[in-house]
């Protein structure tokens, strides 16, 4: 069958080779953009590539990356989670309240140790995540609306906890036995900041789940065709619930990290973080329609956003221009995504024909 094109012209071979290259470049575009930015900034600002600065940079990136990794699963199912920023803010406030105000039973105020504070904070955030999941998976509310609602609910709750005030001095006091909280965001392990380790660990887990486990397959399947997934016997509601809860877990970590880094909890923390997270996911090539994308892409996307933000600050670009540039980068990235899809449709058949021919010979 493969003998039917005896005179495959030379130009065609060349075309195939260049098509392959273009496709490869497009697929690796997120990482290319990242490299390009790194080269650009280190050329323009010599202090950019210093160990100290990179340490600060990765700390910034970790915040976006944690949220983006959680968001990836939600988006892969075809949903969206707008509430992560608010959940992070709420998490910080819960931790702040527990550390500075304590819990009172029968008129006696108890100050729980830091480990318990962290656990309780995470539980509080998971509840919001579970609410998201319940609204979307069981009550059938559109994810955009459901999480928009919880965005306001969580933010309002954060404000209510302190009446809009900041909880300062989260360092704790030795007499109350609750010191050590700032270490959550400020400590180092092997010269690497703890939040960065958290990012790495969470990413590793998320990557394994997404690519190696049935749960990951189910997430992709639901995003591809929810009805088909249900008919294939996949527990659609449970899987969706799990994605929202996981996203809230990531947001809780972010809230704790920020509170620990500042040693203070402010109710407005995390405003518009969700947009950064979504941008990172989209930059990483995950489709907002669901079913396509990867956790690795989101991590790279988070790095692009972080590097861009820090680099522009270093170059002294005005804050307003920074916002514009970030927007342009997102729009271009999504444009490239479309281009890739279109090119793949055109090029892939071409490549497959060649591949099968090679297979024969």
């Amino acid at each position, binding site marked *: 069958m493969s003998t039917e094109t005896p005179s495959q012209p030379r130009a065609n071979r060349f075309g195939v080779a260049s098509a392959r290259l273009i496709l490869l470049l497009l697929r690796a575009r997120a990482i290319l953009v990242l490299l390009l930015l790194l080269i650009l900034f280190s050329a323009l600002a010599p202090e950019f590539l210093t160990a100290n600065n990179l340490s600060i940079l990765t700390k910034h990136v970790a915040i976006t990356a944690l949220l983006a990794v959680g968001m990836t699963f939600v988006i892969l199912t075809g949903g969206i989670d707008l509430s992560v920023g608010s959940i992070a803010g709420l998490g910080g406030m819960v931790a702040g309240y527990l550390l500075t105000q304590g819990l009172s039973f029968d008129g006696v105020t108890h100050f729980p140790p830091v480990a318990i504070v962290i656990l309780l904070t995470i539980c509080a955030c998971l509840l919001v995540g579970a609410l998201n999941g319940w609204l979307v998976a069981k009550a059938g509310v559109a994810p955009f609306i459901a999480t928009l609602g919880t965005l306001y609910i969580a933010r309002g709750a954060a404000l209510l906890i302190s009446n809009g005030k900041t909880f300062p001095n989260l360092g704790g006091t030795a007499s109350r036995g609750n010191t050590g909280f700032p270490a959550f965001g400020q400590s180092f392990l092997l010269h690497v900041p703890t939040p960065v380790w958290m990012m790495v660990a969470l990413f590793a887990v998320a990557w394994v789940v997404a690519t190696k486990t049935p749960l990951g*397959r189910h997430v992709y*399947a639901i995003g591809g*065709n929810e009805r088909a997934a249900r008919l294939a016997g996949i527990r659609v509601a449970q899987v969706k619930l799990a994605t929202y809860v996981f996203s809230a877990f990531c947001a809780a970590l972010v809230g704790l990290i920020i509170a620990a880094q500042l040693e203070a909890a402010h109710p407005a923390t995390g405003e518009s973080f969700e947009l950064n997270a979504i941008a990172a996911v989209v930059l990483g090539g995950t489709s907002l329609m669901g079913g396509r994308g990867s956790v690795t892409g989101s991590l790279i996307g988070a790095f692009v956003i972080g590097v861009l933000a820090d680099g522009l600050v270093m170059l002294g670009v005005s804050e307003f221009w920074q916002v514009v540039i970030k927007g342009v980068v997102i729009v271009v990235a999504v444009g490239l995504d479309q281009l890739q899809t279109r090119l793949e449709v055109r090029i892939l058949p071409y490549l497959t024909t060649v591949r099968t021919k090679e297979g024969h010979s």
Partner: protein
Amino acid sequence: MSQVNQPAAEVILEACNITKRYPGNVALDCVTFRVYRGQVNVLIGENGAGKSTLMRILAGAEKADEGTLLLEGRPVALHAPRDAAAIGISIVYQELLALTNLKISENIFAGRELCRAALFVDQETQDQRSTAALNHLRKPMDVSIETGRLSLGCRQVVEIARALDQGSRILILDEPTSALSASEAESLFEVIADLKRAGVTIIYISHRLHELLHLGDRFTVLRSGRVVGEAIRADATRAWIVERMSGRKEGAHDTSSTSSPTRTVVLTVSGLTLPGSVGDEAAQAPVHDVSFSVREGEILGVYGLLGAGRTELLEALAGLRPIASGVVAVRGRKIRTGNVRDALRAGMVLMPEDRQRDGLFPELSIRENVVMAAKTGLFLSRDEETERACKLVAQLHIAAKDVELPVTTLSGGNQQKVLLARCLMCSPSVLLMDEPTRGVDVSAKAEIYGILRELAAKGLSIVFTSSEIEETQALAHRVLVLCQGRISAEFARDQLSDDGLFAAASPSVAAAAGAALARPPGGTA
């Protein structure tokens, strides 16, 4: 065969007094359906009779309002598809539900992934078993290809492979051959025979009567949600089936009234070659140097096996696919290739093969779906449009309680008719139809043929593909046979024969079989 020796075949599954109501519509009205162990249980009925609804209930995808299911005499409750899978019922749905973003092997194991260490997906074993299941169906594919890139027929094979691999006791096939051509269907029948020998119970639904008569052991006929007839193989005849289904005797087929086309050539295609497509052996055989012309009022059939390039050819004519080389002209005017609007402007309309993916707007109503194509017209007012749409709905016997209901509430065959109605709404001069009667029942088919012949007599040129030889013979003035992307034969109406078509469509047996086997499943070497 052994029918006589088994007087009391055992009932394995019984649906008792099942009633299912939809808003404003009773789909099943106290239906009792018995499924006999180790036999092919055939369910027949017109479009909208309630066959698929009953199957969805048996597969746990839908719950009956009333009635019980008895498995080997014990009542079972099915709340979800996985419950049915757990008791050994697997199904191939009529509306194919592939996860288009996943690989073939991931599709075959979706929702029941094989695990290593109870945690990680065992991709290798999944790939192996998928490959084996597809080979069993004699349709080897590269299982790491994304399912969305497969043709409809290949997706159907994938779904059948999925159901087969589950190794269930009861296998439900709801129109499994509607997108398959004769040779693929033949492979499926062999598999069914094997399964039967292994004691698997099969429930089979199809509108192709010859298949039913060939396969079936038990026949149950549904009409408007009621059982109106049951028979064993010995008593079932074509006439009985048709009479039971529609409640009237089968009318004589009117094939004589075909007008002959005029001399004027409307569509000319010369040297059409497409860049390769993926998914099956078609990867090596896109459309190659195809030339033909169609005259005014002519009905041209394009016959070929799955992957012969039929769909690709029609899609290219309609401007949906880029063309590598060649010229398409309508009434002497060259069409800009790969441009849908230009094809439409020239009056060329495509009725796509996959109504779910390419055809219908599932959220919109039946009327809106029909009217959609005519929206841009200058001359029709809305009322007129609606009136014409309703006329078409009546003419095509679309069994709709209300044309304002979403189109997805219709049965599969009726959705197909909606698609046809839409294509007729825009008054094309060349109608390209890909499997025009997929899933349409026998009497409605005859009706549709009549309408198409009438339109042809008025000057409409039609190019259609069909995987059914009977349909090709009934409708076409002239038949082109495609084989691996090339025209391998041309028959005038009076030269048509089953054997001739079949021989021309099959690639020379040795070459094909050899190449198919030689090709490693992985594709790359």
